[in-house]
């Protein structure tokens, strides 16, 4: 019934199809709650796990599954900072910019990262490898300055360690 899902490289918003596995996962999530709307954030994350980000046309698709209006899904999709509404790189780097890391050198760490990658906060490298974003306290303040690459938390990170660290994320 479903056509194969386009790969992240070829995806355009008007060619969007929910993967059948993702649709099933969304329905399973929705069963944990009194009302399916509660699975909205998880549904967005499911799309994001597969595509890297949440294209516009995913919104009505999710809304249909959860039985809610697209506007409420859109409202949620634009509120939460870890739901990406633009394409991001293969790896997302979240640099903590909260107080304990600020005191232990997050500005210097961010500058070193920017310099190495040639991008500022909110930008993606030209080769599509990394996106750099700020994040609030990662709950790793005893390891400040801290950052997260994809699912991995690092800290304290010295500027001289960045090269080795980034190598692990081709």
């Amino acid at each position: 019934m479903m056509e194969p899902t386009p790969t992240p490289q070829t995806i355009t918003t008007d060619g969007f199809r929910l993967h059948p596995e993702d649709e099933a996962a969304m329905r399973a999530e929705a069963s944990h709650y009194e009302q399916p709307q509660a699975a909205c954030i998880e549904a967005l994350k499911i799309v994001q796990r597969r595509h890297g980000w949440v294209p516009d046309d995913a919104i009505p698709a999710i809304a249909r599954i959860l039985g809610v209006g697209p506007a409420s899904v859109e409202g949620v999709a634009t509120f939460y900072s870890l739901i990406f509404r633009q394409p991001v790189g293969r790896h997302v780097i979240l640099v903590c910019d909260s107080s304990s890391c600020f005191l232990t050198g997050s500005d210097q760490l961010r500058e070193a990262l920017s310099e190495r990658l040639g991008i500022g906060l909110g930008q993606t490298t030209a080769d599509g490898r990394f996106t750099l974003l700020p994040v609030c306290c990662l709950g790793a303040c005893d390891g400040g300055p801290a950052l997260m690459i994809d699912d991995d938390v690092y800290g304290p990170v010295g500027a001289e360690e960045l090269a080795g660290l980034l190598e692990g994320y081709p």
Partner: protein
Amino acid sequence: MNSQRQSPVYRSRLLQPASERTPDSHPLTWRLRDDGQVVDLKDYESKQGYEAVRLVLDEGDPQAVIAAVKEANVRGRGGAGFSAGLKWSLTLQGGDIPRGYIVCNADEMEPGTFKDRLLMEQQPHLLIEGMILAAFANNARFGYIFLRGEYVESARVLTAALAEAREAGWLGPDIAGSGFDFDIALHTGAGRYICGEETALLNSLEGHRANPRAKPPFPGQSGAWGKPTVVNNVETLCNVPAVMLRGADWFQALSGDRTDDGGTKLYGASGLVNRPGLWELPIGTTGRELLELAGGVRDGRELKAWLPGGASTGFLLPEHLDLPLDFDTVGKEGSRLGTGLITVVTEDQSMVALMRNLEEFFARESCGWCTPCREGLPWTVKLLLALERGEGEAGDVELLDKLAADCGPGLTFCAHAPGAAMPLQSALRHFRHEFEQGVRYPKGKPHADPIPAGEV
């Protein structure tokens, strides 16, 4: 995963070896392993795990649980210090009131706070046991752990532990043959500090934008999907099993005569200390004791100020180091205990720059519902940036006073704005001269386009 040998992978850890921790003195952490591996179900059960659930379900008296938690004076460890027992006694139950929910607030995002992560990553069953007890006391039919999205390791450990507990019959129908049924689902978020505010959390749980709700009604009256709902912090819930097993008097006595608050606290230190970390200590431990455990101020610098419990608490000074860190004492100093993890600031740090960093956080994380918070905080940041560059104008410091006052308690929809105001007001009180130094022309700007002398 990164394969570099020296990659600085972060691991949550307690800086107290197992040899220093006993069931009598460290109810939260005595089971933790020195190697930092998870205390799994088998390990947990062999160390009195789920004994409190068995005991309480055998006795079958929810009101007795509430009475014990009240008597032990377990105060909310999420930052506000509200009595858990009192909160539970106000939860609607009985008659034709539907069974509600237990929601564990695991959104830990308060800058400077890294305690709930430890409990979830290394000892998930203590939290699950605490939630079962809370569910029984409050007649909840289902529980949610609202976990921040970035806590990927916590999610992994909790998911495995929930499956273990279900398999062993600690979750699900007819728990331990008592007829009581209860289960828990893990709900992970997607960023935004405001999700930690308990009513915003409920909106987020229901799949809406995380704007707070009006109180009253309080969640205990009408929470998730309009049902009675108890929201408690991870550490608060983790205290309940020991209270039920060992009694309120024992719990009270843990803090000795340091304070009226009962129990221990996961205290921590970060910022500019030599040995940042986490310790389970009697509640009422002093800042000086904590600072000593943390190896003192980094590189022999001088202590300038400290935040007692996260970004939304007020700055304290070196002269406050000997005060017991409990909710009431810190409250009397114009600050709050907050989460109890101190942030240490050294003499060489500009308070204007630090305040700018803090207010950038609060401005970015405002949910945008009320004007003083949505508009006032970015304005505050703008003023602080100007002062930091020495480009402030006459009246800017007074304007900061006003913007902070407009965010005070009771003037906005939730406690986010008061949380932004408290550190600013304390910094303006203790370090006013630093802010004033950032004003370029204290007596007002000179004429915008002065005619150079002799050129007419």
